[in-house]
């Protein structure tokens, strides 16, 4: 366990660590662009240079620790050096901040402010390059802003393994470009390059010009796209930036989804499906209780449902694998005894969707199958032919498979024709409207928090179960 000195203080290091790693572990900040904890070390940005007493400056990300070494991270030479590197990086970097989505979360902006702040000493025009280059239909590349840190290239080579990106040409005309075999377009993890790009060179099409990041806040959540349950941040408008007029739907919409680093589940990555959660959560909502298609009040609907449950001889429930641990427990305690319960796969893989891979994506496209099966068993979601009441909770039920004479109680969130055919329909809240937990396929429990108030007319499933419960007794 070598001991090294940083800025005069002693620190314990592991024998195979670099100076940068030791600094990070001990809260000493060294700037870096190209280094990333999950990617190989390339040492090309040169801004992480530190001074080793008696030996001059060298990059910290590739500097192995040696017992007794004395490192300075804020010496005059290091500071001059950072200024110089920033001069070079901003030499041809366009001053696009006013129109660049990255503003507010841009590493280059932060470092320029922190370490340089000086205007360019060059009086020559900047080198121009390609702007608005479509790397795929999801990602836009601006080569002028690119600082050629190669994080995106290394990501596709080492993490997603699509080998979708590379650097072509040489020198200051080098360009990040996609492979012409379309492997970047087909890379299910492509959008992670937007997160790791330290500048506004790689931007998400779906977030393009949508909002300034300082108008947004994040709420931690769990991606429901598959049983991996990656930790995510859901971005939405801050309370104080809520629109009072114009399109107030902006106030309750998902601006974007990014990974929330969780070393136990997904590291700092998510797949593209997680980015597109608005596609799932912002479908048209069911907003009123109904009885056979006729709008009724919630109380009337609950009462009707209770009647059906009391009067059923062989009631069957299809339990949602999108129910949270709390909702599943509420169902079990209120209605578990009254129903023969089967766990339903609310979602199946769509055509063209990656089914499973060895990175993150799992074949089971539901976030809480594990807990649901734990409580309600692993029998397939087949409805016995003699069932006379079917309670369908959530999506994914094939209504043609419900026996002809059976009555239907349907708990659903989204507008669907089946809602009108059910004997009782109850509109329930979605994940972004409440707090809860999911258990992933490895048994890891992750929590999500409410981002938005419940849509009008919508009620929590837990409240429904409480209202329906005790019907049998």
């Amino acid at each position, binding site marked *: 366990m070598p001991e090294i000195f940083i800025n005069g203080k002693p620190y314990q290091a592991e024998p195979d660590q670099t100076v940068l790693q030791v600094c990070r572990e001990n809260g000493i900040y060294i700037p870096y662009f190209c280094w990333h904890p999950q990617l190989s070390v390339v040492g090309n940005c040169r801004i992480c240079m530190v001074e080793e007493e008696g030996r001059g400056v060298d990059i910290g990300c590739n500097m192995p620790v040696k017992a007794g070494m004395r490192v300075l991270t804020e010496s005059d030479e290091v500071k001059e050096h950072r200024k110089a590197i920033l001069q070079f990086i901003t030499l041809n970097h366009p001053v696009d901040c006013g129109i660049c989505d990255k503003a507010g979360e841009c590493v280059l902006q932060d470092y320029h402010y922190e370490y340089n702040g000086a205007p360019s000493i060059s009086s020559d025009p900047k080198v121009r390059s390609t702007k608005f280059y479509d790397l795929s239909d999801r990602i836009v590349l601006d080569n002028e802003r690119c600082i050629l840190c190669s994080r995106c290239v290394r990501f596709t*080579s080492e993490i997603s393994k699509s*080998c*979708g*990106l*590379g*650097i*072509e*040409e*040489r020198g200051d005309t080098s360009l990040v*470009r*996609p*492979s*012409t*075999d379309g*492997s970047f377009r087909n890379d299910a993890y492509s959008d992670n390059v937007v997160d790791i790009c330290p500048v506004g060179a790689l931007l998400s099409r779906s977030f393009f010009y949508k909002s300034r990041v300082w108008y947004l806040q994040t709420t931690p959540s769990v991606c429901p796209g598959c049983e991996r349950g990656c930790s995510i941040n859901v971005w939405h408008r801050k309370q104080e930036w809520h629109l009072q007029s114009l399109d107030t739907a902006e106030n309750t919409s998902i601006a974007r989804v990014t990974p929330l680093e969780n070393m136990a589940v997904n590291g700092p990555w998510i797949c593209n499906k997680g980015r597109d959660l608005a596609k799932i959560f912002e479908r048209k909502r069911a907003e009123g209780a109904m009885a056979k298609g006729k709008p009724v009040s919630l109380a009337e609907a609950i009462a009707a449902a209770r009647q059906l449950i009391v009067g059923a001889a062989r009631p069957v429930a299809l339990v949602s694998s999108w129910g949270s641990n709390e909702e599943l427990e509420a169902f079990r305690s209120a209605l578990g005894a009254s129903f023969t319960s089967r766990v339903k796969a609310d979602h199946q893989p769509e055509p063209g969707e990656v089914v499973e891979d060895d990175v993150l994506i799992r074949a089971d496209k539901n976030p809480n199958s594990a807990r649901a099966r734990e409580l309600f068993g692993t029998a397939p979601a087949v409805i016995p032919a003699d069932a006379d009441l079917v309670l369908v909770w959530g999506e994914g039920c094939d209504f043609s498979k419900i026996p002809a004479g059976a009555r239907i109680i349907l708990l659903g969130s989204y507008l669907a024709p089946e809602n009108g055919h059910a004997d009782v329909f109850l509109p329930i809240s979605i994940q972004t409207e409440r707090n809860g937990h999911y258990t992933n396929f490895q048994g890891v429990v992750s929590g999500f928090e409410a981002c938005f108030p419940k849509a009008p007319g919508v009620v929590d499933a837990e409240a429904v179960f409480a209202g329906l419960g005790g019907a049998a007794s």
Partner: protein
Amino acid sequence: MKHLIPEFEELKKRLPPGKNGTLVLPCLHRIQDDRGYIADEDITGLVEYLGVPRIQIEEVLSFYTMLRRKPIGRWHVQVCRNVSCSMRGAERLIDHVSRHLGVKPGQTTADGRFTLSTVECLGSCGTAPVVMVNERYHELQDAQSLDKLLGELTQQ
């Protein structure tokens, strides 16, 4: 490029086993010797033969100046413009051959015979100015000798 595969297999005999990456440049050189440039289908074939990612071949093609993805004239006239050659008249030579052929460096004559390029040091400084035509070095060139050479090449 499939007809070249038996040759590529021969090359493996003097190389450490299992290192397909090492065959990338040799194969690309051979393909270019054969076709005159490297076509998209050559890249596809090479990717399949070597099992390397396509982006690797595309990066290599754009990085190394000798490799090209488009055909050029029958004779590639490359004049060195670096220090020693410039000190012995390369700039005048480039002007001269440019006027003689009627093209600027980087262009090909209309009849497709000659492509003119300026290149960096070819390692022939002692016999400057040097002109490389396809794979051959022509040293100690001046306007006269170059005119003569181009005349001979026009006949071929």
